[in-house]
């Protein structure tokens, strides 16, 4: 089937200036050409019958375009399974800010991609997953390795395309990248039947699908500037406020607005708390930084939110891990201002008094400039002294004695060496929270974590993808013994590709976060969370997968020396740390509790009477 020169609905009717315009290519060749044109320098994927034509096209492309040193322009990295491939692409996207791409086959290959696709949707990460599909005539016949991907991914992804008309393949794929990276980023799945991959077509070079509703809304949001009257209203809010607090979320990172945020915060002298996803959006070593707030946020961050009279929500969505009970959140705030690129997030949880839908970067630049131009020089020094005192009185702390290794001591030791400049990925659970609490981050896109979905097994593949994106940085996977097992097959992927990723497993023989909840709310009934009878020897497992540097650390006196040696090793390294199984994550704001009821534990000072956690109701929030 030949491509029509002027397919229905395509935009860009002016002739393409692409050097390969007009060339005969199969659908598979076109897929690879579009991937190359989109600036990808690595692909992740696992092969299979339905995607073989594209894999062959990648092979031929690399052979035809090999560099002088023999290196491939589009290396295709093969993981242990497709979930790993897509998490690698996601780690690549999170670390680089570019769209990550994964290629999987039909049926089980595609369904294995569901978890990472949903993960990227939940955390707004730009990803394109190309799935092979059975030939168009076989769709709906329960063919070999067939799965209804457009239905399955329809509710998980930002958008799904099923390409049944080969003449739209090129435009569809290019549009998929556009949708993934524009507006609020997200994952796009392109399901390509095998006969479409094999179809003889003519390459155009620039065609895209109209998707006019999306483009209209996108244009409106991208061109939205804050009117002078609205700038004035915003400044008036700041002027009336004595204790303003910036609540910065993942949107700052997605927008590339870290510099604009620093400028805004410094210009008016406003302290900053970040969400889990916002970590790195503001330099944690900055004097205005109050670190993370919320369920496991720093006590001083939560108290600052309790004390503030104005909340500036920047690319943050008032998630339940931060807000708890909406009515009781920021109880002294007389006003809330919110900026977000997604209109559906404005006022979703808390009513706001001022808002703007648009790009955070240009918005913050505009507000800063407006304030400066109108001589707005507020004095929040009393408030800054207050939060500085909060930081000094309720600092993060943990047990510093005892024979067992404390996990936070390990994080601190690593942080002393990496100094906020390493890329850190995590699994999910206690180790994730300790990493969020105790690492410094000077730049965005150095903190890679599954926030909204909280997917265990994220850390290792994400670290792999991140290392491909940032060869110049140390990449460390801080993982848990339970989390790493979920995608432990990817240990071999690290050594196969010679990536100098550093893997740390904080081993407390079980599901630590689940146990912590069971201790607090279920009277210590450890249902299915205790793995102390575990047979796994992690060090042997790492060695079996090719790690030349693989050690177990269980002596607190050897922490600094071992970690220094670990980080200095030139190549992939694996460190299992046996930690105190009773270590808990503190502070903790329990489900349905207010910040005033925060449990700070034994080593962090609380400013309220200690709260007694009630046994959780069966239908209560978790």
């Amino acid at each position, binding site marked *: 089937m030949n491509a029509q020169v002027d397919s*229905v*609905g395509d935009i860009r009717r002016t002739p393409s200036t692409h050097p390969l315009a007009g060339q005969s290519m199969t659908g598979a060749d076109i897929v690879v050409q579009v991937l190359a044109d989109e600036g990808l320098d690595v692909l992740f994927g696992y092969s299979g019958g339905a995607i073989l034509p594209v894999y062959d096209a990648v092979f031929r492309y690399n052979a035809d375009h090999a560099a002088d040193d023999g290196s491939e322009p589009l290396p295709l990295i093969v993981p242990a399974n497709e979930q790993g491939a897509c998490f690698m692409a996601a780690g690549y996207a999170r670390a680089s800010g570019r769209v990550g791409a994964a290629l999987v086959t039909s049926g089980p290959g595609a369904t294995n991609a569901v978890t990472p696709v949903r993960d990227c949707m939940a955390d707004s990460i730009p990803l394109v997953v190309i799935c092979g599909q059975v030939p168009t005539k076989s769709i709906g016949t329960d063919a070999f390795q067939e799965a209804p991907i*457009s*239905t399955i991914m*329809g*509710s998980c992804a*930002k*958008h*799904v395309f*099923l390409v*049944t008309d080969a003449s739209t393949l090129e435009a569809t794929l290019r549009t998929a990248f556009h*949708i993934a990276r524009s507006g*609020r980023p997200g994952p796009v799945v392109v399901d390509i039947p095998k006969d479409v991959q094999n179809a003889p077509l003519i390459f155009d070079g620039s065609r895209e699908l109209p*998707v*006019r*509703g*999306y483009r*209209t*809304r996108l244009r409106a949001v991208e061109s939205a500037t804050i009117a002078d009257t609205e700038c004035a209203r915003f400044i008036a809010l700041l002027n009336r406020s004595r204790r303003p607090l910036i609540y910065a979320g993942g949107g700052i990172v997605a927008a590339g607005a870290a510099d604009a945020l620093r400028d805004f915060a410094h210009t008016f002298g406003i302290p900053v708390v970040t969400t889990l996803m916002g970590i790195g959006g503001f330099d944690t070593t900055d004097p205005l930084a109050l670190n993370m707030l919320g369920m496991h946020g720093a006590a001083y961050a939560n108290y600052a939110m309790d004390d503030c009279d104005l909340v500036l929500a920047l690319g943050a969505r008032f998630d339940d891990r931060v807000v708890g009970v909406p009515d009781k959140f920021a109880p002294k705030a007389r006003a809330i201002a919110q900026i977000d690129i*997604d*209109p*559906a997030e404005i006022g*979703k949880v808390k009513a706001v008094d001022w808002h703007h839908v648009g790009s955070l970067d240009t918005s913050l630049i505009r507000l800063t400039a407006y304030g400066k131009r109108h001589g707005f020089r507020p004095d929040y020094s009393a408030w800054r002294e207050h939060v500085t005192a909060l930081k000094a009185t309720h600092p993060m702390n943990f047990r510093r004695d005892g024979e067992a290794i404390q996990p936070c001591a390990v994080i601190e030791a690593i942080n002393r060496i990496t100094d906020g400049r390493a890329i850190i990925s995590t699994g999910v659970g206690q180790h994730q929270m300790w990493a969020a609490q105790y690492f410094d981050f000077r730049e965005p896109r150095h903190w890679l974590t599954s926030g909204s979905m909280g997917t265990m097994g994220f850390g290792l593949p994400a670290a792999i993808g991140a290392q491909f994106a940032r060869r110049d940085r140390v990449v460390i996977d801080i993982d848990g013994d339970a989390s790493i097992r979920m995608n432990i097959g990817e240990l071999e992927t690290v050594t196969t590709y010679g990536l100098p990723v550093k893997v740390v497993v904080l081993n407390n023989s079980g599901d630590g976060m689940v146990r912590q909840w069971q201790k607090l709310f279920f009277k210590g009934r450890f249902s299915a969370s205790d793995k102390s009878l575990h047979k796994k020897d992690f060090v042997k497992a790492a060695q079996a997968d090719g790690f030349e540097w693989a050690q177990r650390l269980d002596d607190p006196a050897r922490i600094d020396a071992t970690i220094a040696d670990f980080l200095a090793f030139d190549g992939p390294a694996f460190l299992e740390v046996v930690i105190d199984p009773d270590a808990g994550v503190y502070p903790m704001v329990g489900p349905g509790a207010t910040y005033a009821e925060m449990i700070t534990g034994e080593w962090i000072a609380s400013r309220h009477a200690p709260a007694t956690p009630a046994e959780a109701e069966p239908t209560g929030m978790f």
Partner: protein
Amino acid sequence: MRHLVSMLLQNEAGELARVAGLFAARGYNIESLTVAATPDVDVSRLTLVVFGDEAVIDQIVKQSAKLVDVIEIGELTAREHVERELLVVRFDAPEAAADTCLARFGARLLHRSGTQSVMEYTGNAAEVDDFLDALRQRGEIVDHARSGIAAIERPQIPAGATAQALL
């Protein structure tokens, strides 16, 4: 509260399923859902009647607006609009009883065979309910099918102008 949502949707395979899935997944109570072609062959109009409070419906509309294939979406409930629904019904009753209903409501007789009349009626949802009630009182409804609500905005009457009654 009853809300009427109207949207223009790109005609893509699976898009209707996606919109319906968005609503179903969040447990919204849909009373009626109609979708049909528009003069633009690429575009369908989808009309939904859904129950919920203001805040809930506001969220639905905003979430639907994020779907790539949604071209336009609006809530018609508060705006001047016209709602119509088509009913076809097979009614078993003596001719005279059937004819009385036809005449009183302005319904159309499509087919008659013995005591069974197939009728067509259009009106807003309440009027269709009333028509069915009237039939039930005079005979037996053997079978019926309702099309669901089709709705469009009515032109806004500019201030100062007199309203013109429409037949």
